[in-house]
């Protein structure tokens, strides 16, 4: 079906090859999972399949890539469109037209499919992906999950025999990701499509994969094999796998279900241990407190009477479904949104009343898209700007940055940084003013495991330094890792507020994998278990 024949890729201007001597064959009907940390070359690997590399990106490709008998040397991506469907990371940026139906039909139009067939395929696809009820909606009004499904549908209508997805969920929050992955697995099972998917939310897909390709990066040779063997060694692994490794189970369980059955003995061993309390919290003074806070955007109530106190040293996770008011809470605390009623006090004042410079001295907010905060041409320029804004000695920001994320090159363009590095830069730029309260909106979006771990340590260190950190997220693993307290919002109201362990284990929806495996025992993270077993 898809054959890589000793393929190496070098981009123009780059000194080293991204991929060297890749040699594999993906058989029809296979679900091939491509793992690897950000920037390791996953995307390059995928783009080779439909010829985007090198036709679109430029560069040198040695060896051959043959898809269904067509060699990418002779066939440009558009000539492969009818056999390879390629879906990129951010669904919204791939859209050409403005409504769902038109978008689904677009590909077929350029293939010249006759109109009756087009009509039929569109209807099929609408049903297959459960989009029938939004068929005539503008794409902008869809949820992220729906948008990604439309993106997938828009290539399915061309009836490709292979589907290539480049991190289809990295830009989505977990619920949306669930939707998409559910749809995908249905495709694999119903249509028997060949699917090559790069994904970092392994916990959801790894159990469906027939084969895993691990791209270590830096041109190192790929590790290819069946999930169990690859996962046994892969540095990128979901919690369930890491737990299994540390306890030394084999065969390696890939799903919570397998793990639970393997975990009986472990539960025995852990019965007489108690989870070491997470990051010890010594509560400092109050930095922010809201009382009966009510906020509404043009008529719609976003926050309906929220009470919350935040003290130094706390790490508060704000959870809840989309539109529950998480972002609104953070924006209001950062003074972007004026409350309609109730009292909000950040560092002794109401933030909305203050001029921008005074606010940022008290509270820093990193928005969902950190690059909004960055508008200079290089990391260095960005840091110097920040120094000037904060009125501190030149180099301070740079120092903060180096301790958040070591070895970032001064001259790199902020946009060329990885998501993790960019987040670090945004943090540094804000933290240089040492605001007591730090707010993060969906910080883990687009981060791979490594980046997430780095973020976790950063947050813990900040808390230890006496900052108060509040972050809105869907990512239960991160919450389990760092949060000292969880605040669950629903329809603008606080439905539960308490220590992480109690809130998270209370409902399966918010439970991390380890907790699910070891329930009813209150273990949250692999780290805790390892510590318990070690000690």
């Amino acid at each position, binding site marked *: 079906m898809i054959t890589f024949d000793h393929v190496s890729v070098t981009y123009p201007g780059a000194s080293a090859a991204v991929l060297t001597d890749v040699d594999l064959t993906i058989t029809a009907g296979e679900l091939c999972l491509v793992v690897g940390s950000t920037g390791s070359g996953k995307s390059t690997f995928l*783009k080779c399949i*439909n010829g*985007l590399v090198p*036709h*679109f990106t430029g560069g040198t490709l040695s060896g051959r890539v043959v898809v269904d008998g067509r060699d990418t040397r002779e066939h440009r*991506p*558009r*000539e*492969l*469109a009818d056999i*390879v469907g*390629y*879906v*990129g*990371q*951010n669904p919204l*940026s*791939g*859209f*050409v037209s*403005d*409504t769902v*139906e*038109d978008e689904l*039909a677009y590909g*077929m*139009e*350029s*293939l*010249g499919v*006759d*109109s009756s067939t087009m*009509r039929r395929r569109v209807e099929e696809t609408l049903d297959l992906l459960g989009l029938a009820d939004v068929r*005539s*909606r*503008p794409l*902008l009004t869809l949820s992220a999950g729906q948008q990604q499904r439309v993106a997938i549908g*828009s*290539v399915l209508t061309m009836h490709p025999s292979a589907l290539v997805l480049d991190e289809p969920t990295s830009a989505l929050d977990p619920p949306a990701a669930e939707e998409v992955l559910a749809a995908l697995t249905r495709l694999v099972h119903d249509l028997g499509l060949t699917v090559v998917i790069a994904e970092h939310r392994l916990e959801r897909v790894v159990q469906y994969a027939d084969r895993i390709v691990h791209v270590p990066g830096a041109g190192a040779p790929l590790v290819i094999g069946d999930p169990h063997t690859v996962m046994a060694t892969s540095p990128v692994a979901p919690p369930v796998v890491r737990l299994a490794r540390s306890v030394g189970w084999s065969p390696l369980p890939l799903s919570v279900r397998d793990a639970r059955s393997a975990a009986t003995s472990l539960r025995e061993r852990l019965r007489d241990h108690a989870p070491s309390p997470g990051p010890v919290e010594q509560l400092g003074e109050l930095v922010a407190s809201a009382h009966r806070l009510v906020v509404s955007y043009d008529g719609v109530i976003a926050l309906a009477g929220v009470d919350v106190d935040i003290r130094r040293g706390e790490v508060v996770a704000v959870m809840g479904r989309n539109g529950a008011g998480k972002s609104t809470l953070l*924006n209001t605390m950062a*003074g*972007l949104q004026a409350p309609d009623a109730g009292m909000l006090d950040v560092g002794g004042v109401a933030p909305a009343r203050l001029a*921008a*410079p005074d*606010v*940022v001295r008290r509270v*820093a907010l990193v*928005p969902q*898209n950190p*690059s*909004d*905060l*960055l*508008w200079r041409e290089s990391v260095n320029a960005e840091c110097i700007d*920040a120094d000037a*804004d904060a009125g501190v000695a030149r180099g301070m920001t740079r120092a903060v940055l180096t301790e958040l994320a070591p070895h970032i090159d001064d001259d790199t363009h902020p*946009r060329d940084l990885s998501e993790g590095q960019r987040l670090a830069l945004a943090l540094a*730029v*804000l933290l240089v*003013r040492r605001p007591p309260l730090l707010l993060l909106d969906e910080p883990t979006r687009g981060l791979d495991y490594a980046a997430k771990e780095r973020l976790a340590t950063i947050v813990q260190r900040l808390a230890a330094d006496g900052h108060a950190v509040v972050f809105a997220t869907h990512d239960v693993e991160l919450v389990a890792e760092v949060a000292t307290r969880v605040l669950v919002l629903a329809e603008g109201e606080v439905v539960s507020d308490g220590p992480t362990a109690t809130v998270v284990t209370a409902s399966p929806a918010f439970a991390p994998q380890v907790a699910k495996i070891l329930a009813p025992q209150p273990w949250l993270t692999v780290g805790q278990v390892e510590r318990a077993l070690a000690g």
Partner: protein
Amino acid sequence: MKRLPRTLHPLAWWLWAAGVATAASETSQPVLLLVLIAAAAYVVAARRAITPWSASYSAFMRIAVVVLVVRVVLYVLFGDAGGNHVLIRLPRVPLPTSWGVRIGGPLTAEGLISATEDGLRLGTVLICVGAANAVASPARLLKALPGALYEVGVAVSVAISFAPQAVVALGRARRARRLRGRSERGWRAVRGMAVPVLEDALERSIDLAAAMDARGFGRRGNVAPMHRRAATSLTVVGLLAICAGTYGLLAAGSPALLGVPLMLAGAVVAVAGFAVGNRASGRSHYRPDAWRGAEWAVATTGIVVAAAYVVVAHRDPATLDAISQPLRTPDVPWQLALTSIVAALPAFLAPPVPRPGSRSRPVPVPARARAEVAL
């Protein structure tokens, strides 16, 4: 019998509007102009598409009023029309005669009325355009583009679907400035806001290009080379003819054949070239707007109205003349009065517009409907 609701082919609406506008531009007879405006208003009220643009009619209405006012003010300022019914003599600002400009002077009833008529005529044309914008959402025109313009059409539809996001992004960037403790006002803010938005847009454009490429964009069907060549040569010849026609139109006293006729001939040839190229491009259209009886009917009404006015304008200009030279009660030829009513017929000829929720095709919400008129 009950007609199924469907949206009329945008081209039909535009033909109708163009016809009425042409008619309006032929006369300065206020009564007729008012009838045309009323007709347009009635059609819009009856057959408005449910789009964010529906409001554009009133927007254009406002602009038309502005035009009228400006026109009259100009007259009052430079009032030097004929007529012997002097209402008032404004003091004249002494300016050297060589300038040829006089400010102030006599204001005559004739002048005032003719200014109003003139403004009213321009206003009516504007209102017709507004009507077209309101009944046929312009975005749907894109789907009617000929195949030869496919690529450009894609670019525009990308622009249309992305523009609202760009506006949102601008808002985000403004908030981001505040988050970094900068003020969101002033020239410097422009820089801080423009750059992130632009960067996002450009990054998006690259992803988009990849997505398009991967979805077979620009993949030409097996085009017969003779088709291609025919299209090309037709286009070239057409362009040449148009050039010559334009030249003939403007060159003093060139033979009549060299003017408009040649130009139109060229246009026809070029269009033919389009048609051929259209067949040549191996693309298909998903649910194209149908062109059925209703479309013919609506288009015809427009053409009829235009034709009637043009004919009268050339047969018997006096009747379409301003009523200001000399002042007189307007004498409206009854034929024209009747034809003007024809302009309102699309309200009944066009099928009812589909309610939202049914098969209507919504479009991204644009900024407040605003029309730019070069005045």
